[in-house]
């Protein structure tokens, strides 16, 4: 059968669109917006989920983090200068969780003391963290130099410390930290390693305390020996004494499927032994679920906006093409008299709508790549444009062009040639 001579058809299609630049441009606009929002939506969605997943990777999806939180009432009740406020996770809690909850692989207890650490005239105000040798592994910390605390250090209550990367940079700008000694008051700690870990920051609406990179890690046993059970805090001239067994307890669970159940058990244990809300439970996996749900809602809302604007764009194309068909009735009659088959006419108009949709879609893709970039620059949201989303958008605009072009093209092809020739 007769070939459709694609190149010529495209050329004459473009020519006829060019003849009505304004009209064609306005018609394209709907598709451009639709495609742009599809891509931008996917980019923002992908960025958000990627960010959430990265956060969760940082904290460990197998982990449940319990943090001690100073309850507000104990603060206001502290009218006496020498009052000891006691709150948070206790050794008893930790032991109970470690020994009785099934599917718990290990627990990482940490206790923190706020202190001034110095070397000669360089000093930092930071948290000294008393912990256990497997802290680094469970918290995804990387040893940069030397090593982390060992079982031996723990047993000997050794006067050693591991520095967070930033702390090491401040205290030892020349990089000679390993083997040197840092001081805290009269206490001396020998540096045995430098580690780095992810910044923690805000997470799922809960603030996670601590910056792993500027902390100083010592064996938990050493801390209890050196500092005793109570710690003193100075705030505005008055001293308050605190007694907190553990500031944080990270529970590592056997498998992802067990996380929710273990969390429930731990929550129950803590509810039974604590009369007030002096702890918080952070479950990265649950936050992942939340993040997914949020993203899902986000996608549905934006997806429907995109779909509606594509629909409107498509109807716009159909409307304009119907008008064009009416306007060009005579031309259709002439072409039919000259031997054009119905499918030639269909192809002619379909080419025009397809071109409209694809050019509109192409512009949409350009804006769709630009928009997430601007969102990222201006709003600070992470966005990721994936190749498949561009292909999807391109496919959608092609589909819109064809679907909404079929009816007008069909109308054009089924005109009676004689009537068409007589038109106006």
């Amino acid at each position, binding site marked *: 059968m007769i070939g459709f001579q694609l*190149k010529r058809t495209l050329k004459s299609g473009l020519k006829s669109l060019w003849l009505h630049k304004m009209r064609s441009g306005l018609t394209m606009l709907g598709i451009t917006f639709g495609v742009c929002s599809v891509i931008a939506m996917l980019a923002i969605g992908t960025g958000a989920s990627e960010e959430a997943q990265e956060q969760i990777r940082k904290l460990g999806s197998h982990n449940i983090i319990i943090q001690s939180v100073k309850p507000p009432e104990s603060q206001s009740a502290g009218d006496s200068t020498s009052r000891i406020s006691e709150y948070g996770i206790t050794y008893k809690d930790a032991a109970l969780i470690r020994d009785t909850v099934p599917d718990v692989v290990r627990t990482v207890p940490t206790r923190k003391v706020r202190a001034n650490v110095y070397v000669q005239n360089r000093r930092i105000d930071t948290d000294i963290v008393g912990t256990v040798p497997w802290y680094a592994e469970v918290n995804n910390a990387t040893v940069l130099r030397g090593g982390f605390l060992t079982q031996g250090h723990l047993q000997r209550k050794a006067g050693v410390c591991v520095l967070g990367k930033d702390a090491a940079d401040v205290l030892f700008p020349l990089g000679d930290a390993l083997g040197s000694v840092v001081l805290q008051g009269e206490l001396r700690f020998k540096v045995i390693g430098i580690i780095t870990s992810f910044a923690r920051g805000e997470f799922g609406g809960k603030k996670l305390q601590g910056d792993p990179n500027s902390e100083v890690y010592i064996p938990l046993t050493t801390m209890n020996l050196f500092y005793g059970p109570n710690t003193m805090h100075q705030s505005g001239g008055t001293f308050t004494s605190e007694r907190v067994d553990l500031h944080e307890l990270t529970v590592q669970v056997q498998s992802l499927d067990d996380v929710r159940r273990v969390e429930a058990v731990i929550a129950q244990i803590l509810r039974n032994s604590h009369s007030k809300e002096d702890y918080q439970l952070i479950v990265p996996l649950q936050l992942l679920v939340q993040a997914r749900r949020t993203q899902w809602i986000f996608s549905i809302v934006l997806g429907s906006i995109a779909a509606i604007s594509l629909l409107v764009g498509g109807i716009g194309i159909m409307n304009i093409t119907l008008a064009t068909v009416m306007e060009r009735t005579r031309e259709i009659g002439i*072409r039919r008299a000259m*031997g054009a088959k*119905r499918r030639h006419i269909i192809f002619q108009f379909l080419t025009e709508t397809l071109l409209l949709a694809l050019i509109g879609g192409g512009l949409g893709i350009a804006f769709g790549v630009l928009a997430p970039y601007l969102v990222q620059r201006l709003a600070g949201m992470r966005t990721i444009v994936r190749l498949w989303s561009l292909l999807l958008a391109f496919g959608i605009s092609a589909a819109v062009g064809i679907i909404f072009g079929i009816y007008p093209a069909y109308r054009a092809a089924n005109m009676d040639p*004689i009537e068409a020739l007589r038109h106006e």
Partner: protein
Amino acid sequence: MPLAEMKDIWRTYRMGSTLLHALRGVSFSIEQGQMISIMGPSGSGKSTLLNLLGCLDTPTRGEYILGGRNVAQLDDNELSEIRSTEIGFIFQSYNLITQLNVVENIEIPLYYQGMSERESYERAVELAERVGLSQRLTHVPTELSGGERQRVGVARALASSPLIVLADEPTGNLDTKTGNQILTLLHQLNDEGVTMIVVTHDPRVAAETERTLRLVDGQLQDGTDGT
């Protein structure tokens, strides 16, 4: 065997509940290379007859044999095929496509025949030259005079080397002088072997053709049918 033959052709339009017989039993035939004219008062069915001859329309009843095939039995695709290869139309109102230039207008039938771009361009230029438009190749219809437009119409009708050229009042919109030029062109083409049927209101035009069919009220008048 005649090139085209009509046997008892009827064309009936249904207007609501009434039937309008635009043609009532028309029979005639035309030989290869002939030039005949069709005359008749307005509304007598001349255009209807020409549309049937050009396969733009099919008869309600009767047989139309064109080049050995019974047209009444063909479908839309086959009719289109015949129009693109065997029929050339010339219209009173030219019917050029306004956004296309002279060459592109002449190329239309060739495009639907599937001729290559280059070949059809060359043929269109050749035809434009033949009808005296070699200086107007890239002009669009609005830049042409009526006579020039009709020359484009003639060239376009010839583009596909049709079996028959059908002209519906080709000089109807032209002044006498320009009209005569177009008629001279048609006669020249006929001398070169193109079979031609011309609908006209002008007796002088009819007088110059080999034969004149007179239509009155959808019927050929006595003595004008047959051979």
